């Protein structure tokens, strides 16, 4: 399978990465090289094979559904580019 320029732009948008017109052909070439490389997986017979979902067979541990952490909003927002009164600030999303 290979991707065309339109698909490259669509993937970039899905991945929320802005791409310039000059970048698109270059990215297209690189993505197609990788897709060509993984194409050989098609020759493996995977009938009846379960997908691997965990490296070590184990039951996922669960804990009590209680609050165990928190109460330090200063720390939570200390690395944010824009904040106001312990809130993260983003461009307006609702008209």
């Amino acid at each position: 399978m290979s991707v065309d320029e339109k698909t490259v732009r669509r993937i970039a948008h899905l991945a929320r990465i802005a791409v310039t017109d000059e970048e698109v052909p270059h990215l297209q070439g690189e993505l197609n090289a990788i897709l060509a490389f993984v194409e050989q997986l098609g020759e493996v017979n995977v009938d009846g094979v379960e997908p691997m979902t965990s490296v070590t067979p184990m039951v996922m541990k669960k804990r009590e559904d209680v609050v165990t952490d928190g109460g330090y909003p200063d720390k939570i927002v200390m690395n944010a580019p824009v904040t106001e009164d312990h809130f993260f600030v983003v461009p307006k999303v609702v008209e």
Partner: protein
Amino acid sequence: MTDLLDLTLTDARDGLKARDFSATELAKAHLDAMEKARSLNAYVLETPERALAMAAESDARIARGEARPLEGIPLGVKDLFCTEGVRTTACSRILDDFVPPYESTVTAQLWRDGAVMLGKLNNDEFAMGSSNETSAFGPVVNPWRRKGSNAALVPGGSSGGSAAAVAARLCLGATATDTGGSIRQPAAFTGTVGIKPTYGRCSRWGTVAFASSLDQAGPIAKTVRDCAVLLASMSGHDPKDTTSVDVPVPDFEAAVTRGVKGLRIGIPKEYRVEGMPAEIEALWQKGAEWLKAAGAEIVDVSLPHTKYALPAYYIVAPAEASSNLARYDGVRYGLRVPGRDIVEMYENTRAAGFGREVKRRVMIGTYVLSAGYYDAYYLRAQKIRTLIKRDFETVYCGGVDAILTPATPSAAFGLAEMATASPVEMYLNDVFTVTVNMAGLPGISVPAGLDSQGLPLGLQLIGRPFDEETLFAAGQVIEEAAGRLTPPETWWA
């Protein structure tokens, strides 16, 4: 005080205990060496004040007779581990000046045991790379050079700063992470020892995530024994990581001298890849002979799905990366580049903050997970992963204790030498190491000799799940038989 730099971690531990020198002297010797070695670009942040404060505390504890297992041992930390109050970037512009308000479990355990932090080490951006050339801080220079040449070589990646710092004697050991070979390949390129433990042995909590089902922390150090000591401190169950496994941590150091008598070591024929340099083939042969001479039985084994591990990895790892890296959106931390609306703000931020290799992998991952392609790519790759794991299980069920392979298909290459290569050519560096991550197994890389140009080459041992002890025992046999490499001259200082 150059001699302090030549000590192994365990020598230094003994010297501190005997009060031959202080933790402060040991830290200062390394801090001075780091300052003189800035041209190698191994450290992206030096933390001398923190180091001297921790060393002073160690000296006080030693004086009181309350030394902890790693008391006063100066270490470097890969910049993928969050360190409380100390800038952590994953060597990406997108994390900007991120200062974690918490400490990763792995580093917290090292400090709990008395180790001293010298600084943060360079790596490929988000650990995506095999040469440390994708770092936002620029490449690391390998302390090793070809005989009679001044050409700068790469240290391998992604833990290139960790490996170069250990090889250049800028720390006694370093933390590292390995998603497809990022501990073992740089260790092989720099004549150092590196172990990726079994998936789940070390907590991933507080380590910047790349591909969560493959990422695993481990040490890089000067000797097999040093790695055993560090891994013991880094390991153990952590309730904060649900994939961390609740099994006891064995006495790894005790396993180092166990020997290999009676062990069966497998040689997988599928690792004899086309175009493999004769020197590597010969070294592999020599490794098998050393183990045999030490009492192991060498048997031929087959891992038929080996060739599919790398292509399957390049579906699984980018898919998980595209999901993990979705968090870098310019809202909660790191870089933010404005846009007309929120989507444009996301797109501009991620375009400016991610480097080329990261963008490439996030886009591949996005594509293979997108509607209509999930079954053809991701699901198929995960099924192939089951087959790769099954190959190993069959061999181990047949009575094989560990598997011996080359660590890398070549010695270290030149800086920028791969600049015009396709991404896939760079990916081939991990052809011998990536199977181990796909199956979740432990793997160690041990220096085994020099090539005709005087560059280090490594051998890899792959173990059964949670049997790092056999790797330390067999690794020690190789280290003793090969003889420890004479470290490179300090041409950079």
